[in-house]
């Protein structure tokens, strides 16, 4: 396979960049666990409680960030052909939207919220 002839070799990140990303990922994971521990042990008030009340959102944001770093740098989406970004992003978009919609619909479907007179 003559990959040389295929001009796909966009500039990739350097080894140093990869180390940086590794550190970031590690820190983010540590943050996730710390967030979990703090929220878990949190009392009814204070900073811990604040974290606890936004636990899911913060956790998902941290994960999304990690996801983004891996996809962009380790998977080279930042440097590679745009079409690859489109392929991945659109699949991800469909997956997230469709499946979230399914989840919401499924959950509401278990109730009879509309039949109890709300819409009359």
């Amino acid at each position: 396979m003559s990959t040389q002839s295929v001009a796909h070799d966009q500039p990739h990140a350097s080894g140093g960049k990869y180390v940086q990303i590794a550190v970031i990922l590690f820190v983010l994971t540590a943050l996730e666990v710390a967030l979990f521990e703090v929220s878990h042990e949190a009392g009814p008030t204070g900073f811990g409680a604040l974290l606890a009340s936004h636990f899911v959102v913060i956790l998902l944001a941290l994960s999304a960030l990690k996801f983004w770093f891996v996809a962009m740098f380790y998977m080279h989406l930042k440097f590679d052909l745009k079409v690859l970004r489109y392929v991945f992003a659109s699949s991800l978009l469909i997956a997230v939207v469709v499946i979230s919609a399914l989840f919401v619909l499924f959950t509401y479907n278990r109730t009879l919220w509309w039949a109890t007179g709300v819409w009359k």
Partner: protein
Amino acid sequence: MRYLHVPRPWYRPVGLLGALAAVLVAGCSGPYPQSTLEPRGDFAAMVDSVFMTTVYLAAVVFVLVEGALLFVLFKFRGKPSDADPKQIHGSTVVEIIWTIIPAVVLAVVAVPTVRTIFATAAVPATSPDGQPPLKVEVVGHQWFWEFRYPDLGITTANELHVPIHRTVDLRMKSADVIHAFWVPQFAGKRDVFPNRETRLWFTAAVTGEFPGACAEFCGTEHARMDFYLMVDSAAAFTAWVDRRHADSTMMYTGAPKHAADSVPLASMDPKVARGKQLFTTKTCVVCHSLSAMNPFKDQIGPNLSGIGTRKMIGAGWLPNTDENLREWIEHTQKVKPDVLMKGLPPISDDEAAALIAYLRTMR
């Protein structure tokens, strides 16, 4: 390359017309007691109205578009030797126009659609007759329908009695797989699930007997899971309810309100007496109750209260004749393969006749 004859212009649409004609001829075979096109209640009428809107619009679109297609076929016939026609790649103006037109047509459909969706969603608070809606619990079984009236305390099967002009508030579930409750002249379908309640409602505007069916495939005998909706006048409905109460009270208290049971076994018509005994000894009683009041919940077989005078047996399917009842009792698995009524002790013609005589006293 061989180029075969070009059909004469007149004969081109003949095929389609022929098909239509055949359909029209075949169509002359009414009446249509299960038709969605003849609504007999408010729910179905609302649905029918929005449906007919779409049908009329669709008819216009159909004539225009198929007409355009036919016009093109006749107008632009070419010969192999013809010069190439003008090469047109498209027209933005035309394309925008025919994007907007369907959008407008659909908007015309969308408005009544959404309105009807909301109008049919919740059960109205009061009936046209001024009373609160009549609550009915519907339970789908493989393969029959169980109907409970929680406020009246009675249970029945395969024949849903409702009074005219009273909104019926159906709360539905299934005992096994998914079924769908459908009385086309009164309401659309609603699935019934084993693990959640679904709702449906309608108000009957005329009295009479109307067939309904299971509309969700539910196994071997899905085709034979029918039922009848009996719309009674207010008085007839009250009488029917009283009858169910009376029969059942008698069964629990021994009060002499029923022809067959008011007399002791010994003085009963011996055939009926034997039938009564057989109902127990042939294990019928394990799955069936003859009492409309307080039967065991989740009984396996349909409730048989008033079976003597029901219109149909076998889940709204076989006319309730002695002959059909005998066939059913003796050869259930032949009449309706796979129903749960199997492994019974064998029943002779004689015994069946006695059972039937007894069942006929259940009025």
